[in-house]
Each structure stands twice: as C-alpha cells, then as structure tokens.
C-alpha cells in the first residue's frame, strides 16, 4: 500500500563507543561503558554509576561559534547527524532543501545548559542569563540546529514520549517520507549527566544505587533493582527505498512496522507489538530477535517478559538488551537499539546482554553475556516511556 522506507546511514554516540565502528566492535563482544560517574562529584547522590561518553571533544567536530550556544546533547546530536549523513554518502548541499527533514526525540532537553543559566539567574540576576538560553535547553533544539547546519527545510519536528521517543521519531520520519520527503534525519540523542539532571533522573525512583558496574543494571534478573543512566543515542538516515536504490545507496534495512500505545486498564505493550507486526504484515514467528526495553524494575520486567511469552511463546524468540552495556540513554536508547538491530542483522550476530543472570520464571530466551550468531532477517525493537508509553518497531534486513 505504501512506499518502503529504508535506513541508509547511522550516526552513533554511545558510552561504549563513539562512532558506529567503535560502538559495534565494543557491543558485539560485550564491552560495557558503564562506570563511576565522573562528570561531577556523585558522592552526595544515591546513584553513582553512569554510562558516560569518553573522549568526545566537541571542538574537534563543531565550529567554535556553535559551542557557547549548545548543550552537550546538541553537540552530540550534531555530530551524530554529521556521521549519519557521511555514512549514507549524502551531501545535503547537493539535495533540494525542502526534500530533507529532521525529526528527533528528546526526553528532557539540554539540562546542563539550563542549570548554568538558572544558577546565573538565581545567584546573580536576570541580566546574567545567556542570550542563547531561549533555545539552547528546549526540546526542539537538536532538530533546529541539525536543520540549520545541514540546510534542511523539509518537514521537521520533535516528539517527546520519555524513553519511547526514539522509535516515535523514526516512525514520524517514515510517515513524512511516505508523503514525499526524500530524506529525513531521525532518531534521538540524550545527555542529562549534570547534577541538576541527575536529581531529575533520581526522582523517577528507578535508578540503581549499586556501586559495582557489573551488578548495577540487571534486567530480567532476580536482583534487578533499577537502571544506570547513560548519555548518547543514534541518528539514522531514512529514505524511500526506490530513491535509495536509484542513487546506489548501501541499505541497512527497512522500517517495516511500527505502533505506539499507552497503558490503560492493562499494559499496552502487547497491543503495540501486535499492531507493529500487523503493520509489517508479519507473524510473530517471522521475528528473529527482540531488542527488549529491559527496564530492570521487577514489575516492568514482569510485564515485558509476560508480553513476550504471550506473543512469541515460552522461550520463543531470542531476546537481548545491549543497553546493559550503555545504561539507559532515555530518548536515545531506542534509537540506538534500532541502529544496533541493523548492525546485528548485517553481521548475523545477536549482541549480548551483559551482567544479567536471567530468572528462569520469566520464560525468556535471553541472549547472555556471549553474542549469539544467528541468521537475522527481522528484528523487533521495544521501548517504553515513563507514565505508560509503549512503542514497538519492526525492522527487516
């Protein structure tokens, strides 16, 4: 009925690897990027571990003029977009400006920038607030800055659904391509590792307070007691399949199905999966691997595991959670899982779920600490956002 939409470029910034090559070589062997938080003194806070991106020097990648007006999240986003475009072999200047869009997700905006300006306001006075505060912190900033840097004037936007946003942004991008836009930069990067953001993250009540990086984020494990936050995410280049073919682009795979639901009388995750499979015109048996949301909160783990067993059967499909190596990247998490799914399908290797000792009673075939070779044609990526958001996306190689 509708045009096929494919992914032709990936831009990844993650705690266990900056850039697709480093990220995948770490992820495929189970190398974790979780460690003690160093960005500020974490001693006063219950949670002390994070997935920090090391070795990212914005000055090496971005013009000096952009630095005073950007938060870490925007710098990472701009660089991820540059890398994704380069990976796709696209030079935006060569394309009609109105044919390119940018659709990102954000969970909480540019919190570190905001902290600095709030401190100026309340410790010194309103005249000390930066001229850049009016946009540097807000949820739309990454989309705006990417569109300006790359001259993209097509349909653009921002969706905010907490940690489900990465998939929702890609789905909205697919919608725009089906309506005629040639190319959309889509996905999400998040970065909240400042003390003000850290306090915000704590108030979710879902952070792990463990101090051993190997025991802190253990989804589907009896010991599960919250997650470790991380920074980063992925931006993807989406194009219409025929246009990508026509320009001889390398294609990672197709965005084959998607659905989003909200929890109500019962959790909406199962319905999201079923609708996404219907949208992809696939049966559960067609799915070769599931990238789980993997909340590592007992009630949420139970709901996800029960849902997977209901849809796929007892140990009916391999399930993995490579985010155990990065921490949860908020809006960036699902976008990174999506990128990881394409890399996994490309190599025929399901990346591991590290640290977790899965509880048998969940009935999941959780891929453990060793990656598992497998022929992968179809992957399902799940994401849930605080408050009841569920998103499911089916991708096909």
């Amino acid at each position: 009925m509708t045009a096929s939409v494919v992914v032709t470029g990936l831009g990844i910034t993650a705690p266990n690897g900056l850039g697709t090559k480093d990220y995948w070589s770490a992820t495929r062997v189970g190398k974790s990027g979780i460690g003690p938080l160093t960005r500020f003194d974490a001693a006063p806070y219950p949670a002390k571990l994070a997935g920090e991106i090391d070795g990212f020097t914005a000055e090496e990648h971005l013009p000096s003029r952009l630095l005073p007006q950007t938060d870490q999240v925007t710098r990472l986003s701009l660089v991820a977009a540059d890398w994704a475009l380069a990976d796709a072999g696209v030079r935006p200047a060569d394309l009609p400006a109105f044919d390119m869009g940018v659709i990102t997700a954000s969970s909480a905006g540019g919190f570190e920038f905001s902290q600095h300006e709030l401190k100026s306001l309340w410790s010194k006075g309103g005249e000390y607030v930066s001229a850049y505060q009016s946009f540097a912190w807000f949820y739309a900033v990454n989309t705006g800055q990417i569109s300006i840097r790359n001259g993209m004037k097509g349909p653009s936007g921002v969706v905010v659904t907490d940690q489900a946003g990465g998939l929702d942004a890609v789905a909205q991008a697919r919608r725009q391509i089906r309506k005629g836009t040639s190319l959309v930069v889509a996905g999400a990067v998040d970065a909240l590792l400042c003390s003000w953001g850290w306090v915000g993250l704590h108030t979710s009540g879902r952070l792990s307070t463990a101090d051993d990086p190997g025991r802190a984020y253990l989804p589907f494990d009896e010991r599960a007691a919250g997650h470790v936050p991380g920074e980063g995410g992925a931006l993807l280049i989406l194009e219409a399949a025929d246009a990508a073919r026509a320009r001889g682009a390398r294609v990672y795979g197709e965005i084959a199905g998607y659905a989003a639901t909200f929890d109500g009388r019962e959790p909406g995750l199962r319905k999201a999966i079923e609708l996404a499979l219907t949208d992809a015109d696939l049966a559960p048996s067609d799915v070769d691997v599931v990238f789980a949301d993997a909340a590592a909160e007992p009630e949420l783990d139970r709901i996800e595991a029960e849902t997977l067993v209901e849809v796929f059967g007892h140990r009916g499909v391999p399930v993995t959670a490579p985010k155990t190596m990065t921490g949860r990247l908020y809006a960036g998490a699902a976008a990174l899982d999506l990128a990881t799914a394409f890399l996994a399908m490309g190599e025929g290797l399901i990346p591991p779920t590290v640290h977790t000792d899965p509880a048998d009673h969940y009935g999941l075939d959780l891929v453990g600490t060793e990656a598992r070779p497998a022929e992968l044609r179809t992957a399902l990526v799940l994401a849930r956002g605080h408050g009841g958001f569920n998103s499911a996306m089916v991708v096909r190689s």
Partner: protein
Amino acid sequence: MSQPTFTLDDLKRILLEGSGAPEGGGLDGDAQDVLDTEFSDIGYDSLALLETASRIEREYGIDLDESVIGDATTPRAFIDAVGDHLVAPAA
C-alpha cells in the same frame, strides 16, 4: 582614576568568550580592516551581539542603548558606542 577604555581587543575577547570564534578567521585580520567589516561578514549574528552587549554591560557597569545592536553593524561603530557610555558624565 584613569578613564576606562574599550578597544578592539576588549571587543574581540568578549566576542570570543560569549559567542566563539567565527569560521574563516574573520577576527584575525588587520585591525583596520576588522574595525570596518560588518559583523555579519565577520561571522556574528544579532544573538552574538546581544550576548556581547550584555557581557559588556555587566563587566563595565554600563547600560547600552538598545539601538546599539541594530545600529552598530561594525566593530568600530560598536566600540564607539561603548566608548560614549564610558565617558558619559557621572552626574
């Protein structure tokens, strides 16, 4: 007490601190050329000038006319505008 002054070097310092260095090294040329180059050609937009004006006001304890941003389109005009405030009679 000596009169405070405001020079091209002061302007450059505050521009760089508040808004970064323009691509193409627009601030690095011959001082006489830089003084008469439009800010937009150097690589600074109105936001950069607003940020710069705000930093100058804080650092020098002066209150620039709001028209400075729109009217002073070159470093020379901007420096002159700041200088006028620095020498204004205290009474």
